[in-house]
């Protein structure tokens, strides 16, 4: 393992601990969904995205959209760690009168490109941003994380079709495929398989990675676009609740709030 990968993994571990602390303090759920995306977000913000926290609205910045807005806690911690704002501000997470809601808002939080929370919106907006970048002949790229559940939304596939129609090779989709959606296993609720074939048939170039293997994530993200003239998708196989044994692959951690005992246990495991 290179030093760089080791550092990124350490960073991901810190981020997980901060998410647990925040969620415990706020007595809020969606923890499993947040932990699932941590390694991908870490790779993006600490290695891949061309961004400057001091100039969050810089013209040529890469754009990132967290279409699965319910993982906001992970994005907040990542943005704070990356220097977009002071980590101390996150003590206000879900506090009355603050800007840090359970779903990210465009207003008042540097680095948030799009307010999300309702599923199936992010990819269309990303297509619009990628089109604008192409029209303006800018080098900036657009990245968007989708949940597997939001691939039930028809609008996601409308957007996918248009991304390839407009040959948006500056657009990369990452699907956080933890195979658990809000009320059951994806296989049982609305089976996405054959998932890779679906994206291929929508004219995306596809790669699959282990969404918790930092080297794999980085290697894949470094290679986008996988094919010139085509949008890219990375199917990231992930584990809901990754890093905390009693949360892993458990549907209830879409909702549960930690007890004091569970909090202590989670923090110990994430040391």
């Amino acid at each position: 393992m290179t030093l760089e990968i080791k550092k990124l993994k350490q960073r991901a571990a810190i981020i997980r601990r901060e998410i647990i602390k925040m969620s415990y303090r706020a007595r809020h759920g969606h923890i499993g969904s947040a932990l699932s995306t941590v390694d991908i977000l870490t790779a993006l913000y600490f290695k891949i995205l061309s961004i400057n926290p001091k100039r969050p609205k810089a013209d040529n910045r890469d754009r990132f959209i967290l279409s699965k807005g319910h993982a906001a806690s992970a994005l907040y911690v990542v943005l704070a760690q990356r220097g977009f704002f002071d980590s101390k501000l996150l003590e206000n997470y879900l506090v009355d009168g603050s800007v840090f809601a359970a779903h990210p808002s465009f207003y008042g939080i540097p680095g948030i490109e799009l307010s999300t929370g309702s599923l199936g919106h992010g990819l269309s907006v990303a297509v619009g941003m990628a089109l604008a970048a192409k029209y303006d002949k800018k080098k900036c790229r657009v990245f968007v994380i989708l949940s597997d559940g939001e691939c039930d939304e028809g609008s996601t596939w409308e957007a996918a079709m248009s991304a390839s129609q407009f040959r948006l090779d500056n657009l990369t989709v990452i699907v956080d495929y933890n195979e658990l959606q809000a009320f059951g296993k994806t296989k049982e609720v609305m089976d996405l398989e054959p998932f890779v074939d679906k994206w291929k048939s929508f004219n995306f170039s596809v790669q699959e990675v282990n969404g918790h293997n930092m080297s794999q994530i980085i290697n894949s993200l470094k290679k986008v676009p996988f094919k010139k003239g085509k949008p890219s998708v990375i199917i990231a196989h992930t584990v809901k609740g990754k890093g905390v044994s009693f949360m892993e692959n458990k549907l209830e951690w879409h909702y549960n709030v930690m007890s004091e005992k569970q909090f202590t246990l989670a923090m110990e495991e994430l040391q």
Partner: protein
Amino acid sequence: MRTAFINTLMQLAGEDERIFLLTGDLGFTVFENFRKQYPERFLNIGVAEQNMVGIASGLALSGKIVFIYSIVPFLTMRPFEQIRNDVCYHNLNMKMIGVGGGYSYGVNGPTHHALEDIAAMKALHNMSIICPGDPLEVKGAVKAIAATNGPFYLRLGKSSEPIIHPRPFLFKIGKGIMVKNGKDATIISTGNMLENAMLAANMLKQKAVDVRVISMHTVKPLDRSIILKAAKETGIIVTLEEHSVMSGLGSSVAEVLTESDIPKVLFKKIAAPDAFAKMVGSQKYLREAAGLSVKAIADAVIKLFNKRAKVKKKL
């Protein structure tokens, strides 16, 4: 109205490179020139209105002024939540151009009729609503909304609407236009009912009733002062719209009047019933069935006029 829209937009697009036009696969014989002249800024998104609104939002977030176009129900209702979250919440510079206000699509049936759109759009924060009364107002409206930041819904009729304004006027968002002065009653009309409003006013002139006609092209934000002035000066307010009687212009005007302290104003909403059209028909036929004919409008005004005369006599 479509022609007035696209001609004005063509002109603006020549002056401002930020202007994009997106369509949900509609615009045959209307958009060909725009597509030819500005191919990179014309995007046919296909029959996918939710995606169209999302893409428009991404473009607007990147500094573009984005016009999106479809038939009213497909434009305003299919992607309602995208309009709410992506466009209105972010207060984006997006202009929704709906063709087919009211019964414009007549024989195409209720799937294509637009009778609930003003109500739906009125409910959205940050959304402004403009229903031009004739092609001249369309021209003014397109220029004004392109120059004003934020989401707009522009509700057009269809094609071959006549020019109504007898003289030049200044189009200002949120400011109604008095097309004809009068002292006995006021018709406040929105959208392409302006033609019938003027015809009714002329019909009433022959019966010695002097009717004021206001074109209330902007339904939101509403011009309160022109309403209150008309209420004070004429005492009778009749609203007119090719939209459901539920939550359209009439409801908004009624709110202004009931919250005001002007006494004894007689008020009547003329609008389509809260119902899908029960039979097939042209726009003219369906308007008549819905009580929106020139005669029905004139009768409604006369009724209020006589009622007031009776009250005055008693005093």
